[in-house]
């Protein structure tokens, strides 16, 4: 199942996550899983959760995991081979 956060990123919407989520829920594109309350004092009990959710999501590397691993291995091999060549060159001297 694709998460709401992933869909939000894919939509490239300019809206804040919370507004986008509400709009999609009203359009019927997303299910409403939790009940949000409007408090008389205007404080949003869920605001902190939503903000944290988006912040957590933004920490996820943009590069796909497989590609990131392949690049890391390639860098490791280059480093080892490069090191061996430099040390060989120094010993010859």
């Amino acid at each position, binding site marked *: 199942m694709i998460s709401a956060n992933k869909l939000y990123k894919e939509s490239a919407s300019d809206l804040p996550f919370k507004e986008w989520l509400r709009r999609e829920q009203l359009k019927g594109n997303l299910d409403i899983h939790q009940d949000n309350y409007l408090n008389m*004092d205007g404080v949003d009990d869920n605001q902190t959760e939503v903000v944290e959710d988006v912040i957590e999501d933004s920490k996820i590397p943009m590069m796909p995991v497989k590609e990131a691993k392949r690049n890391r291995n390639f860098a490791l091999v280059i480093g080892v081979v490069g090191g061996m060549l430099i040390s060989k060159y120094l010993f010859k001297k």
Partner: protein
Amino acid sequence: MVVEYPLYGESCTLGITIGCNTPTKISLIVEDAESEEVVFTERTGNLKGSATYYVRLPISPDVALIDVEGESSDVVIEDVKIMALPTDMSSPLFKRPDVISFINFAEEFSYDASSLQANATYSSDDDKYKIKYFEDIVDDSGTSLNTPARISQKTGLIEVSKKDFLRYTIPMRLAILLHEFAHFYVNKNMEDEVEADKNSLILYMGLGYPRIDAYNVYLDVFENSPTELNKERYEALQKLFSKNYIA
């Protein structure tokens, strides 16, 4: 000084003239003579000489108990007059049967809130509206919230804190319930607090309830949650209340 005054449950405005020879702080309470828990207004002020205080009573008891206390012992109720209650029901909202149904339900709930059992759900006569009455409103982790009431964006169910309602007069309670109602049933933008304030106060003031009680309850709520939004709401309320409106 305490005076009992028969009102026979009729809507009216009380003009209470209070006098004192020396400058003093006074408190004025109007409640149901049969139940001290049913309070229609509770005000304080400074008095020098003689002054008339107007108490609007869109809903009133059979017999009102007027209690005036002062720091000085010579504070007296000089006169009590019954006058007509000014109302303004020109708003199209008053033509909506669903709005009238909620007003009736909210007035009844506000009147009885002190004696109603907490941890129970109360419904309007047409079963359209429900109020869940808690001792205190808590979040999912069990932490007490500052808000005296809230409404579900999903179902329109209103939750009310008895802890807070016990401190409020009947008009204060009604102002809160109408605010929650406006969010879900009147607002164009459900989440807009300023719009909910405005829409609910059109109803509240149109019915003839005292401005001072609405002002006091909003201040109470804002004091507990001093946010930028609430500052904006306070400024909008100031504009609305500055219109000519006795009491």
